C-alpha cells in the first residue's frame, strides 16, 4: 500500500521510499525512512498535501505525488511500539565508548 492511500488517523510503518536522489535523502533526514511509524493527521482540500505525524512525535508535510512513492504497511496501535524494540535490538553497532570498553 502507498502512503498516499492511507486514511486520515490510521498508522503505518514505512517499508520503502522509492524516490530519486537527493529528495529521497532529504525525506530520510527529515524522518521519513524505512521503519518510521507514520500517521496522516490531515489533508488539504484538494488532497495535494498531506500533514504527517512521524513516530508519534514530529510533524511534517509533503505532497501526495511523493507520498505515492512511499510504500507502507498499515499497523494497528498495539503493534507500534513493538516495532521500536525490533530496530534497537537488531543493531549490533555501538557508541564510541562501548568500543573503547571492548
Amino acid at each position: 500500500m502507498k502512503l498516499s492511500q492511507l486514511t486520515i488517523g490510521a498508522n503505518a510503518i514505512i517499508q520503502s521510499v522509492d524516490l530519486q536522489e537527493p529528495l529521497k535523502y532529504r525525506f530520510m533526514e527529515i524522518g521519513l525512512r524505512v521503519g518510521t511509524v507514520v500517521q496522516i493527521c490531515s489533508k488539504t482540500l484538494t488532497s495535494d498535501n498531506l500533514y504527517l505525524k512521524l513516530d508519534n512525535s514530529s510533524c511534517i508535510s509533503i505532497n501526495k505525488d511523493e507520498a505515492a512513492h512511499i510504500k507502507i504497511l498499515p499497523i494497528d496501535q498495539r503493534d507500534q511500539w513493538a516495532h521500536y524494540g525490533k530496530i534497537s535490538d537488531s543493531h549490533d553497532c555501538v557508541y564510541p565508548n562501548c568500543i573503547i570498553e571492548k
Partner: protein
Amino acid sequence: MNKQIKVAIVGQPNVGKSSLINAMSNAKLHVGNFTGVTVEKKEVFVKSDLFDIKMTDLPGIYALNAYTPEETVAKNFLLNEQYDIILNVVDANVLSRNLMLTLQLLDMHKKMILVVNMIDEIEAKKGSIDAKKLSILLGIPVILTSAKTSQGIDEINKTIIQTYRAKQNDNKIYYTQKVEERIKELTKVLQKSPHFKDKDYARFIAIRLIDKDENVYKIIHDLPIFIEAHNVLEKIYSSLTAELDEDSTVDILSNERVAIAHNLHIETVNIKEESKNLNEKIDNLLIHPILGLPIFLFFMWALFQLTFVLGNYPMNIIGDIFTYTATTLADILPNGTVNSALTQGIIPAISAVVMFLPNILILFFGLNLLEQTGYMSRAAYLMDGFLKRFGLQGKAFVPLVSGFGCTVPAYMAARTLKNPKDRIITMLVLGFMSCGARLPVYILLIGAFFPTHDAGNVLFAIYISGAILGLIFAKILRVVLFKGEPEPFVMEMPPYRLPSYKALYMDLWYKTKMFLKKAGTFIALAALGIWFLSTYPHNSALEKSYEIKIQHTKNIQIKKQLQNELSAKSLEESYMGHIGKFIEPVFKPLGFDWRMSVSVIAGLAAKEVVVSTMATLYSVGNASNTSKGLIQKVRENVSFNSAIALLIIIMIYSPCVAAMSTFYAEIPQWAWRAFYTIYPNVVAWLFAYGVYRLLSAVGH
C-alpha cells in the same frame, strides 16, 4: 588581549541555535518558529575573564549533505573555515532525529559539545533526558538547556572554555564491521596524499566519500590521489551495497546512524507517551481542509484593519507634535535659510515618515506572531497546492510573506528554496508583496481619499492585489521563461509555541530604532537635498516683483494668494522644478504633477522617501500653510484617479536600492539582473495607466 575561542554553532533547523546565542549574549539574532530562519552566518562575541568567545550562528542543516543554498552556507563553513569547537545544538523533543547530524559531526573528529535545548518542553511533559549517560556514550560534554528559561546557559560558557583547554578525546563513531573495513581501506589510500596525512582527517574524508558527498568528492577530484581513491571508492560502492543488500552506500551509513541514534534515544530519554495535546487541537482548526485558508485570510484582514485603525491614534498625535514643532520654530527662528530648511524641508519630511511608525510596528507585530507561533509553516502547507498552480511552491510562502515586512531579508529567505528556478521566480515576484516602507504611502493616500470605516479594507485589498499580481506574474514567468515543475514540497511543522515576549519586544524595539535612525539620517538628508533643490536658485527679480505687490496689498486674502503664487513660481524655477519638468512627461499620462513624479523617482532610494518628498515639495510650494496636515495637502493637490495610479505605481515598481542590491548579490546572472531592474517599472506604469484611463472613462 584575551585569547579567542572560535565556536561554530551547528544543528538542524529550528532547534534554537539563534535563541541560545541571544540568551548567552546581548545579541538580537532573528528567531522564528519555522525552519530556515537563519540563512546567513552571523558572528556574535561573548567576553569572559580569560577568553573571548566568537560564536558563529549558522543556518540549520539536517545533514552534512547540504540540500538547499542556505544549508550549503553552513556546510562550507564547517568544511572550509577555521574554528576550535563545534557546539552542536539539538532539540530535546526530536532527539533521535537530531542525533543523526551529531553522529556525522562526530566523524569530523573535532572538539565538540552537545547542547540539548528545549529541555523545558521535555520537563513540561514530565520527561527527562540523562545527560550524563548521553555524554558517556558519545564521549563529549552534554548540556541540557532552555533558551526560553535560561536553564543551563551559564554552563555553556564554562564548558566551552573547559573543552578548549582539554585535549581532543577519542570521540569517534564506529560503524559495523563491514563498513569499518571499507572506511579503513579508503583511509589508507587517502593517507598516501600529503593532504590527508592526518589519520582522523583522512577517515572523515573517507566516510564522506562513502556517503557520496559531492563537495568532498570535488576536493579530491583535483588531487593526484584521485584515480587510486576513485577506483577503491567504486569498488566499495559495489561491494558494500551487494553485501548489505542496499541501493546505495548512503542508505547503509544512514541506517547505521539511525540505529545508533535510536539506541541513544532509548538509553537516555524518558518520556511518557504523549496524550492528544493542545497542539493537535489548534491544528484541527488552523489546518482544517475547508476552514484553514479562510481563517488565514481572516487573520491577515484583521491585521490590516488593526494596522490602520489602531495606528491612526498615535499617528495623529505624532503629526500634531511635529506640526507644533515646525510652527513654533518657524516663529522663533529668524526668517532665512535655516528656518526654511528646518520648517519646510526636514521637519515635514521626518514627520511624514515618523507618523506612520505605529502603523508599521503593528504590521511587524502581526508578522512576528506569524513567525514565532509556528503558524507560518502551517500557512505554507495550506498554500502549497494553491501556489503550485501559479508555478511557485509552498516553501516560497515564507519569503513572500516576509516581503510584507521588508524585501531585503525576504530575498535572503529565498535561499531555502532548493531549485534555482523556483528561487528566481520567487525573487522576481517578491517585489509585488508590499513592504512595510510602502505602508506610509498607502495610509496617506487612503486617508486622503477613502472614508475611515473603509480604510482597513482598502489597505487589505491593496496588499491582496499585490499578492495576486505577483502570482499572475509567477505563472507567466513559469510558462514563458522557467519551464518545469516546482520542487516537491517537504517542510517540518514545528509545535506551536507561545511567542517569546523578549524576542518580540527586542524585534520591535530594534525595528523602531532602525526606523528612527533612518528617519533622522538618510531621510533627513534626502529631505535637505530635496529642500535645497526646490529652494535654489533664487530668482531675485521675481521675488522683488512679488514683494512689491504683496506690500501694496491690504487685503489679507489676496496677500496670502500672492505669497502662494510666489512660492509656486519659485518652486517651478528651482533646480527641482526643472528636474521635475524633465520627468513630468513620463508620468503626465497618469495625471501626476511634477511633484508627484519627483516623489515617485525619489522613492527608488527608499519607499519612505515618497511621502517625505511629497511633504517637502507640498510645504515648499505652499508658503502660507506649513502647518496643514500632509493628508489635507494631498487631498487638495492630487486627483482621485492619480492617487489610485500612484498607489499602483508604488505597489509594483522597483523596491528600494538596498533590496535591489541584495537581489544583485544573490543572483549573479546579468540577464536576470537587467530584467529585474526594468520589468517592474514597465509593468507598474502600464497598469497604472490602464486603471487611470478606466477610471477616467467611467467618469471618476
